[in-house]
């Protein structure tokens, strides 16, 4: 082989070898990129919900196509010319002779032969000395490929994701005081109302508060964990539902649920969920007709009774109950019974009812009476949902009694207003203007006063234990009125007052104020003598009290003696005291709360105390929430924290004020005021 050809072969071999390594390097780099892109693509697709295998197929296909495209685009990078360039960059001392040689080998016609020979002769030694690994190092590229492969394997097995989660948790735990616990997105509350209400269960995610009817059941399902929960101070047993912790509790009273992870480190991130339990109220039953006591001349009438009833969750039953009272004095006989009602429900919650009270069937004699009311129940099991209407009387007039149509005392206005003094006042006023009234108006007005007179008289009759037959004799021997603090003449005076009231009634029945007024005044005077001018008596509850016959007329004034009344401690006003305590603590800790130096656990404890004061109160819930917000934003702007703290403390102060009694002004400018008063006394 001629020397020139030999030199050319040496150069060509060297260039070919370097070009081959350039091709390998391009391949390795493409492979590293493909692995990386493929793993990211797989991870994204898998994270988006695609199955792992499908994501892998899609990813491999994509990277194959991308790799092919890249290799095609980079094909010029591993030609002989590129190899010559690489050798020149590795050996700058060759002064482009290799590049020239490669070009002359491709285009020998571009120069004379001796020139080609001379160039190849100069290039051959260089080509022989070329260190291919130095010209095209592959170690780094192999490293990239291996690294990409390792990363791919790690991603596939999920190690980075776990590391990220761990790192986030670590960072999160480092910022315990200024980040909200993960509980915010993990609580699911299911409230199941009592079956008798007939409403479906409802589920709330991450509740700020829970409202439920008394008797409901609450299920809290919390993902993640482990979690610990308690209702107030009562720990709740934890169950499991898949990877969620589950707590069940019946809701009988308002309170709050405290949830934390159960270790001291996270107790400062405790979540508080207030629970407001609404009690199922008993039905409200009202007799709408006749809605007043009746005094009837005989027992021939049928009294139509109408009523309406209402319940917050639905009524179950209504019935009219009556008690027939026969006899006089203390020789009473009682007979109880019921009458069916004709019901016409407007809906489940509002019912109207009617009944006909046929007095003739009850065999009422003159002087007898019946007491009736309407009983109702809501749908609750047991007796808790039972309620009764007001009780009314129907009395059949006895011998000598004047039957008046009826009287009614509006509950709010006249309830306490009936007094003998007031009857005198009304009679006097009526007397002053009776000449200006026509007969019908006068009869109407005097009938109303007579009804009141009758009510007052009835009260005193109740007070003395029933109808008095031999009033004088009984009064003479009575010693036990008013716990012995009155003299024994008091009862006699009361009986006298009752008699005067009867005469006043008779005068009014005769439509004569002139006849009614003197006995009415005499009744007042008798009562004043009896009670030391404590003239007023509340309307008694229409329930006849039982009198122990063995004690009647058996008292002795000589046994009356001093008595010491025991004073019991005032009941502890828990909410007011708790509110004051919380206010004082917040003020004492205000510096630490403002600058964020107070440990989160301390704020959590106060927040829990606040919600424990009255869990169903929106105000206390707001205060608790604000305190937890202050806990969770310890590193935020101190001015904003100070403003929030001020609002929170002001809210507590307002609650305290609402339950407090004011003091007007205690600075007594005694000397000047007193001197002035003394001067005016003269």
């Amino acid at each position, binding site marked *: 082989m001629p020397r020139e050809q030999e030199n050319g072969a040496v150069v060509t071999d060297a260039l070919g070898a370097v070009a081959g390594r350039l091709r390998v390097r391009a391949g390795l780099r493409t492979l590293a990129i493909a692995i990386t892109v493929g793993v990211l693509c797989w991870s994204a697709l898998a994270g988006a919900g695609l199955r792992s295998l499908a994501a892998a197929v899609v990813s491999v296909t994509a990277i194959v196509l991308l790799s092919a495209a890249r290799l095609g685009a980079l094909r010029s990078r591993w030609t002989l010319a590129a190899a010559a360039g690489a050798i020149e960059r590795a050996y700058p001392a060759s002064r482009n002779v290799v590049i020239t040689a490669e070009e002359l080998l491709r285009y020998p016609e571009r120069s004379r032969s001796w020139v080609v020979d001379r160039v190849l002769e100069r290039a051959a030694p260089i080509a022989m000395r070329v260190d291919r690994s130095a010209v095209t190092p592959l170690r780094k590229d192999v490293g990239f490929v291996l690294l990409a492969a390792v990363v791919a394997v790690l991603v596939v097995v999920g190690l980075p994701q776990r590391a990220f989660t761990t790192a986030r948790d670590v960072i999160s735990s480092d910022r315990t005081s200024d980040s909200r616990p993960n509980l915010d997105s993990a609580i699911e509350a299911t409230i199941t109302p009592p079956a008798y209400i007939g409403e479906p269960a409802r589920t709330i995610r991450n509740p700020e508060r829970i409202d439920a009817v008394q008797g409901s059941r609450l299920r809290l399902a919390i993902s993640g964990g482990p979690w610990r929960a308690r209702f107030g101070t009562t720990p709740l047993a934890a169950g499991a539902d898949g990877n969620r912790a589950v707590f069940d509790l019946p809701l009988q009273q308002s309170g709050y649920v405290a949830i934390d992870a159960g270790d001291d480190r996270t107790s400062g991130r405790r979540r508080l969920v207030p629970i407001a339990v609404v009690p199922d109220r008993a039905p409200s039953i009202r007799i709408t007709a006749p809605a007043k006591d009746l005094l009837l001349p005989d027992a021939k009438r049928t009294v139509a009774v109408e009523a309406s009833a209402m319940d917050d969750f639905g009524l179950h039953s209504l019935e009219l109950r009556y008690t027939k009272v026969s006899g006089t004095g203390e020789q009473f006989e009682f007979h109880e019974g019921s009458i069916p009602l004709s019901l016409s429900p407007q809906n489940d919650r509002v019912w109207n009812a009617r009944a006909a009270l046929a007095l003739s069937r009850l065999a009422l004699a003159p002087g007898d009476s019946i007491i009736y009311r309407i009983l109702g129940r809501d749908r609750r099991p047991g007796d808790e949902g039972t309620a009764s209407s007001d009780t009314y009387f129907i009395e059949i007039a006895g011998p000598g009694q004047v039957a008046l149509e009826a009287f009614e005392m509006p509950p709010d206005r006249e309830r306490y207003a009936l007094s003998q003094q007031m009857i005198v006042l009304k009679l006097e006023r009526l007397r002053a203007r009776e000449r200006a009234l026509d007969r019908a108006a006068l009869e109407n007005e005097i009938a109303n006063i007579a009804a009141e007179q009758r009510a007052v008289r009835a009260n005193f009759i109740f007070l003395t234990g029933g109808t008095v037959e031999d009033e004088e004799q009984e009064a003479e021997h009575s010693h036990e009125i008013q716990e012995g603090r009155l003299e024994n003449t008091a009862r006699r005076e009361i009986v006298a007052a009752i008699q005067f009231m009867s005469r006043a009634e008779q005068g009014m029945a005769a439509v004569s104020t002139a006849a009614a007024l003197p006995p009415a005044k005499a009744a007042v005077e008798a009562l004043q003598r009896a009670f030391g001018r404590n003239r*007023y008596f509340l309307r008694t509850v229409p329930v006849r009290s039982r009198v122990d016959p063995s004690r009647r007329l058996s008292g002795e004034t000589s046994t009356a003696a001093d008595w010491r009344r025991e004073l019991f401690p005032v009941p502890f006003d828990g909410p007011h005291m708790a509110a004051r305590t919380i206010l004082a603590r917040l003020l004492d800790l*205000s510096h630490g709360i403002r600058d964020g130096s107070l440990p989160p656990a301390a704020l959590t404890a106060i927040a829990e105390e606040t919600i424990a004061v009255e869990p169903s109160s929106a105000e206390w819930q707001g205060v608790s929430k604000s305190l937890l917000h202050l806990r969770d934003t310890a590193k935020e702007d101190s001015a904003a924290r100070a403003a929030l703290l001020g609002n929170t403390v002001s809210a507590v102060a307002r609650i305290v004020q609402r339950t407090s009694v004011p*003091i007007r002004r*205690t600075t007594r400018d005694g000397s000047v005021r007193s001197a002035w*008063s003394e001067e005016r006394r003269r």
Partner: protein
Amino acid sequence: MRVASVLRAIAVAMAVAAIVDPSLNRTTLAPVPVEVVLDPAASASNELRALTEDVERRLRRDLESNAVINSDASPAAAILVGSRATPPEGSGRLSISTVNVDAVSPPNARIISVDDPPRALVGWIVDLKATVEARGLAGTISSIVLEEQGTEIATLERKWTSDNERADVTLPYVPPREGVSRLTLRVRSIDGERRVDDNTADVSVAASGRRLRVLAYEPRPSWGAAFVRRALEDNATFDVSTLVRSSRGIAVRAGTPPAVLTADSLSAYDAVLVSAPEDLTAAEVDALESFARVRGGTVVCLPDRRPSGRYVGLMGKIDFEEVLVDRPLSSSAASGGVLRASELAVPRQELPDADVLAAVDLKNGPRPLVLSRAIGAGAVIFSGALDAWRYRDSPDDGFSRFWQTSIADAALGAPARIEIQLDPSVASPGQEVIVRARLRRTEMRELADRTVIPPVSARIVGPKSIDESIRLWPAAERGMFEGRMHAPQPGRYDVRVATTTATADAVLLSAGDARSSPAVRSAERRASLLAAATGGVVVTPDDLGPLERHVRGLPRPETRVPFHPARSAWFVILFAALLSIEWLTRRKHGLA
């Protein structure tokens, strides 16, 4: 020619007079000597100095002919420019006027005064009252905030309707714990406010956890008193003892009531409730009067019928009218509680010295239903709501609230054996603090010709083993002592005043950032008092007119001034004129 002769004679006479140069006396009105005293604090404040100097300059200019300012002559009037300017010595017969120059340039809001906080009970509401002034803030809203330990506890907003306005504000405060709390009243500054250092004032509230001792005495049983007593027994603040004479020789007792009512046996109580007061014996009325007058306690009379008997004299000459109504009337009570009653006993006449605790609207206008009248150091409360007990609804209704409030107020007003007042109670180190100690009359022994007052001593005890005595001096009022000291280093100090039989304490808070209650209002009151007493006026720099009119109206002294008519220029002119006319006359007649 005759005319010329006459003229010539006159001229000759004038010439002779000029040579003689006679002296005459003339009576004139001299300007009023006025002394203008500038506020000494003006030297420390450029703004105040400029303001006071401007006022002085304007007075000099406007009163130039009528007054001579700061002359050597004895002044007839004094003008104090600034609240701290003091009247000149020997000013007993001067009229003293004041130019208030405390106001700052608008826009500005400031606290004018803060009332001394009333005595407080833990868990009870006390009202903190202050006066706030706004200048140049018409149409804006100021937030007035009450702070404790730097934390806002109450806020109210005030809308200003004019450019120069004052408002009395009340902020409620409930002491959450026993002890002394430092409270800060702050008017939040607005953008561009000229001064903000006058927006803040500190006060201290001493909250007591003690129980108020009340005796309920019923000469005969009465529903009215029973329900008031129950309202008190339901509140743990009251320690109620009861003595009910249920019949002759028979009594019902609760707690630790005295066997009989005497001045000594009542002195342990802060207030005494009396029902059926018409049944009181003369001795009992005397004991109650002594309890109110000397002990300083409050007697609460709860009759259930028209007032009669000796006890009516406790309230002075009041003629009561009984009013019966069909439906109960509601009475408006200052405490917020509501009383309802249908049988009323109301005074027929006006009682301007009475403190009306509840009023009711009748046909002839509002009438006092429950009133309090001072008697000696104490008071008597009379309830004309004879049947109010019938209209109470629940334990926490207006009836209970009204009586709890009224009786707590009365009981807290009963003085302790020694009362201490610190002015100010929140002071900065070095600030002068006035200690006032007042002995109750029960601590003094009244003899026929003199009153024996026990020796009184005072000390201040605090951190770093501070235990120093405070020198007390008797004040003008009997039983009153006053001393002065400088607030020590920051801390909480106990100021203790003791006699041989009693001791009392008050807390002094010394703090570097203490902002005492401003004295603007008191300075204004002092200025008004001075002006009223001496015949002066009080004005502001904005309007000096009343002051100028006042000075011009002052009597000016008459002076006799020697007068030489021949030295007057008019004399010379007249002389020359006479000679000239005489010469013309002679020329007219052809004479030389």
